[in-house]
């Protein structure tokens, strides 16, 4: 019985994403979608994937991570680097993107593991601050990383592009703060939706697998979990690195949607990590579907507010606070329960039953 119910719950989430895809494709096909909105479709997928993957760390594993953008950054740069190197070798954009995707997931997972091993020993807010620190370190290092290629092979420097010592035929691929320019535009909405579905599939199945239940047991009571023989470090690390790998995939999608890639405080700094956290908290911690909806709304919202010009971000911040107060404060929750559609509907059914 429970199994069926769970499956139905999954199906609704998948259905919602697929429905969104179908509606958008129809609108796009019939020309009813503005350029603004069609340009937002891939970012919506990117942020939804990020939100879902962070929800794995925050909601399922129960650890607060403020460095999620760091994994996105690693995934974005590694995949964009690959695509830049192989631009002329692999001409089939689909094959190239597929490999780039695998690389981004793999590299981000690798970073997830090496960061996770020390970090996951810490608790609560200390863990949060260390993940924030790691995110900032990644951003800082990417900003001073110079990689070039000439006929002798690869050159790497962390000083400036001159010290790469490239020959005349050389080309700087990662140029420090100037980042990577000219990444092929390999991603599109269809790919984005497929990746989002894959992310959902991975996370939802993980949640209800044996490992996932072990992870949730650790979240709910670490000591009890340990006492029944659950290997804490192993499961924590597993959830953390899956989450990192998925963030890397989002980074890959992000990098291949824009032709420039810079590690700015805005897109890969702690600001972004916090923004992803906002999606997760607003959508409901542990609620995967909520994460997607929140990410979508908050990605579209600032664009819809463009009419307010200078006051745009001010209004956005007010809306954010209001949404949060309405969603999470105990008073509001009570109010919502009293007057929710759910309740009104169930009242109706009840009265019907009586009749």
């Amino acid at each position, binding site marked *: 019985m429970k199994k069926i119910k769970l499956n139905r719950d999954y199906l609704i989430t998948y259905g*919602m994403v697929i429905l969104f895809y179908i509606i958008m494709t129809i609108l796009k096909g019939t020309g009813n979608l503005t350029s603004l909105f069609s340009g937002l479709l891939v970012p919506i997928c990117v942020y939804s994937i990020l939100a879902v993957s962070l929800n794995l760390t925050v909601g399922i594993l129960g650890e607060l991570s403020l460095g999620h953008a760091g994994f996105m950054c690693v995934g974005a740069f590694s995949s964009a680097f690959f695509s830049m190197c192989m631009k002329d070798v692999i001409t089939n954009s689909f094959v190239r993107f597929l490999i780039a995707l695998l690389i981004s997931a793999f590299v981000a997972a690798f970073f997830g593991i090496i960061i996770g091993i020390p970090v996951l020993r810490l608790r609560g807010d200390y863990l949060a601050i260390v993940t924030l620190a790691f995110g900032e370190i990644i951003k800082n290092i990417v900003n001073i990383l110079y990689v070039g290629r000439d006929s002798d092979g690869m050159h790497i420097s962390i000083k400036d592009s001159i010290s790469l010592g490239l020959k005349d035929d050389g080309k700087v691929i990662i140029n420090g703060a100037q980042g990577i320019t000219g990444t092929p535009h390999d991603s599109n909405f269809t790919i984005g939706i497929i990746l989002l579905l894959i992310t959902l599939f991975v996370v939802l199945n993980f949640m209800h697998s044996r490992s996932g239940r072990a992870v949730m047991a650790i979240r709910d009571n670490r000591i009890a979990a340990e006492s029944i023989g659950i290997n804490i470090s192993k499961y924590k690390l597993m959830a953390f690195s899956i989450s990192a790998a998925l963030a890397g995939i989002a980074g890959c999608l992000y990098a291949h949607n824009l032709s420039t890639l810079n590690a700015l405080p805005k897109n890969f700094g702690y600001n972004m990590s916090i923004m992803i956290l906002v999606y997760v908290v607003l959508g409901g911690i542990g609620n995967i579907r909520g994460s997607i909806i929140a990410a979508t709304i908050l990605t579209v919202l600032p664009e819809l507010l463009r009419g307010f010009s200078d006051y745009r971000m001010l209004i956005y911040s007010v809306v954010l606070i209001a949404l949060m107060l309405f969603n999470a404060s105990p008073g509001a929750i009570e109010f919502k329960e009293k007057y929710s559609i759910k309740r009104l509907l*169930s009242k109706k059914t009840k009265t019907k039953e009586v009749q």
Partner: protein
Amino acid sequence: MKKITSMLLAVVLGATLLCGCGGAADTSATGTTDDTATESTAADNSSASTGATFKIGGIGPITGGAAVYGNAVKNGAQIAIDEINAAGGINGAQIEYKFEDDEHDAEKAVNAYNTLKDWNMQLLMGTVTSAPCVAVSEKTKEDNIFQLTPSGTSVPCTQYDNAFRVCFSDPLQGTASAKYIGMNNLSSKLAVIYDSSDVYSSGIYETFAKEAANQPFEIVAAEAFTADNKTDFTTQLQKAKDAGADLVFLPIYYQEATLILSQADTMGYKPTFFGCDGLDGILGVENFDNSLAEGVMLLTPFAADAKDDATVNFVTKYKEQFGGDIPNQFAADAYDAIYIMKAAIEKAGCTPDMDASAICDAVKGAMTQISVDGLTGAGMSWTADGEVNKDPKAVVIKDGVYVAMD
């Protein structure tokens, strides 16, 4: 029951989103009944518009850390447009102008661009900062919309044939500065302090260092700072001082430069400071002690206290209209950008009823034939690869004003 409700909720939310989006489209597609602006239909749209005005869009950061540049561009262009409209417009047609925020982020810049496309923009003045500019240039290329960036300095900003710029590119500024210092024997040992997290600054530094190898001076200290770490420069200055540098090259923006100058003063370190166009604006900073900037040299195409009529007129209007702020070179670049567009449109003989793509084809050809006298240079002309030909002016700050150097 619960599932159905949540499903309902999801659908409702989806619908709200769509409605919101539809609403935005309605307001933006002025003069058109058909708001199909996807793919290449921007062109069809504009031909369907009433065609009385040229629609020029602008993109730049007006919120966030880089907001000062975007606001300057937004305002500078506004002045030019008001002037042109008051004088009868371009080829008799008025200009409509809309400026969108990109928060200095490539992704937001693309969103801003799409918003403008929904508005049926015909020409794009932007974007203000380099990285978003490159991302947008990819899109303007795709849609074949003419793009003129006032201040996108990095090389790939104008990699496509439909993109031009008003300012100098980074390599040009770096090389010119190194040559100027070398030629005039300003220094034998110099230090550089640059922002390694900024495209403009690190771009100039790189070419400067490359050219420095051919010059009679030596770089004794090359110190960087990053966007996250730009309040305390005493360490960088101390290193320059210890290395015995008698000139400090500052390929950075004036905000950080004000701090560097005052911190150097507190330390009792008094080298010559030399900068690029980013330093312009330093005298306009509210409450800045201008005596600290005494003797600072900079290569800049624009000087807000130049005495020629055009500059005086621009500066007065800018101050009147925007709360007493003194315009910096971004504002001047934007002002010129609008006049350059005007010149090119007139040369190409475009009319407002042409679609964006046709205007682009005509205007990009005209760009290489025109010559414009602007605030940032006299007789500016363009090559087909988008670069401008104009002379950088070297000025030195004396008694709180710019004085031209020979």
